[in-house]
């Protein structure tokens, strides 16, 4: 008995050790740098290194470019994320339950996922260069990000067991009730996840805008949080960069935790 227990323990230890490479890398390249960012956000500058409490945060939160960037980033979420999700839902519904030959079109919707932004920003630039508006950026975001949602959503739709449908249909359920009672609960977690992913991807939109405008100083309407951070990096303004980085990650942390709490609450 004792021998068996020891063996079990060592298996578990081995499993834990499997995490080590990834953990070490994460620690070196993500966790430790993040702690450094927090530290930088609390000091006056990297030479004197005096703690100034939340002074940097007060400066950043009243900085007009930071507020502009924050507004633009949030606007992108509010406008684009629902469009992406609804578009992806409709497309994947039809792809999962529609006529057979329609399914062949799926590759066209997913393809943008792998197309490098640099290749596509050119055509965007030649077509939309004369428009002074943020709409081309939104279109680029929607074009690029609908694919991954479709992949994940169709996987969820096709995971619904057809036998369940048959059983429910025999019990006399109509198509609408069928989907409401069976499909929706099974697909809901994925819809949540996909929404979360798209929100988060909207925070990652930098190269799209950068390559589209080809400059570090885009028009006001396209100036996002990533730009604010990128430009402070180029200006070597460590404190502004660190502070906005901490604020951005707090925002994302809040969104992710909130999303997961919602998912727990409504999907069980």
């Amino acid at each position, binding site marked *: 008995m004792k021998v068996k227990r020891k063996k079990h323990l060592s298996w578990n230890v081995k499993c834990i050790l499997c995490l080590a490479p990834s953990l070490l890398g994460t620690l070196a390249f993500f966790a430790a740098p993040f702690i450094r960012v927090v530290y930088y956000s609390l000091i006056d500058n990297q030479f004197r290194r005096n703690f100034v409490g939340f002074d940097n945060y007060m400066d950043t939160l009243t900085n007009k470019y930071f507020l502009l960037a924050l507004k633009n980033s949030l606007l992108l979420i509010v406008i684009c994320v629902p469009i992406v999700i609804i578009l992806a839902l409709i497309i994947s519904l039809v792809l999962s339950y529609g006529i057979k030959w329609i399914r062949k079109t799926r590759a066209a919707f997913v393809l943008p996922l792998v197309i490098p932004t640099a290749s596509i920003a050119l055509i965007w630039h030649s077509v939309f260069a004369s428009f002074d508006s943020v709409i081309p950026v939104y279109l680029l975001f929607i074009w690029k990000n609908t694919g991954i949602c479709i992949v994940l959503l169709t996987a969820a739709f096709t995971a619904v067991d057809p036998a369940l449908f048959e059983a429910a249909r025999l019990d006399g359920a109509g198509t609408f009730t069928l989907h409401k009672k069976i499909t929706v609960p099974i697909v809901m977690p994925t819809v949540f996840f996909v929404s979360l992913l798209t929100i988060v991807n909207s925070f990652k939109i930098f190269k799209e805008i950068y390559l589209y405008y080809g400059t570090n100083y885009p028009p006001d309407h396209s100036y996002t949080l990533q730009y604010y951070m990128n430009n402070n990096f180029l200006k070597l303004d460590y404190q502004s960069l660190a502070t906005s980085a901490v604020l951005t990650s707090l925002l994302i942390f809040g969104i992710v935790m909130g999303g997961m709490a919602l998912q*727990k609450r409504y999907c069980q």
Partner: protein
Amino acid sequence: MKKLIGIIFFLLSGVFLLPVAATVFFSFYSEGGFTADGYKDLLFDCFVFYPMFWNSVLYASAITLAQLPVVILCAFGFTWAKFRGKGILFIFYIILMMMPLQVTILPNYIGLRDMGLVNTPWGIILPMIFSPFGAVVMHQYMKNTDSSVIEAARLETSSIFRVILVSVIPQLRVCIFAVALFVFAECWNMVEQPMLFLTDKNLKTMSVFISEAGSYTGAVLFPSAVIFLIPVLLLYLFFSDSLEKGLTLGELS
């Protein structure tokens, strides 16, 4: 009705393909009409193009190949190890996956500088090996694989690597292809890292080349965009099936 939906879908997929099609079209088009001169200029006269294209291939392949073992081991650990705080650790990975690059770009830069890795290929490759996306996706997939095969393999051998090689990897095939394709496309698409971490022109990538291609002689802009998307396009054609079956993410915790 079905016909109508079919037609709408056909058109919609056309809209999604249009940007790629237009890029290819413009690569052959100049004021005079259709010509392959752009390609000629790019392939025979523009010698900056080759090192940068090669760099893109090198970085993306190296990162993808190095990331797979790390990710498979990590997902295996997350699925099979039992310890306190595993759930929280996984949530940490998810949050990390969602952070934009710019959040840690400064300390990353300082860290790489201290290690002497700025302006070397390692500065681009090393951090990307540990990007958490693959681990999260693969753990989600592994949760639903057949554990009895692993139990059986454990009776045969005590080496955990043998167990993974024999019983885990065959089950993960689709997911591995999907993650590899996704990671490769991500790395192929890198813009910020080569722009900020590399100063030597000979180390930069195709993304950077295209963003500056307007300044080179000849109409190399659109041809370079087309050549840049061909490798990922081919990979997509080969592995799109895995991509569709291997990526499943739903319930997170």
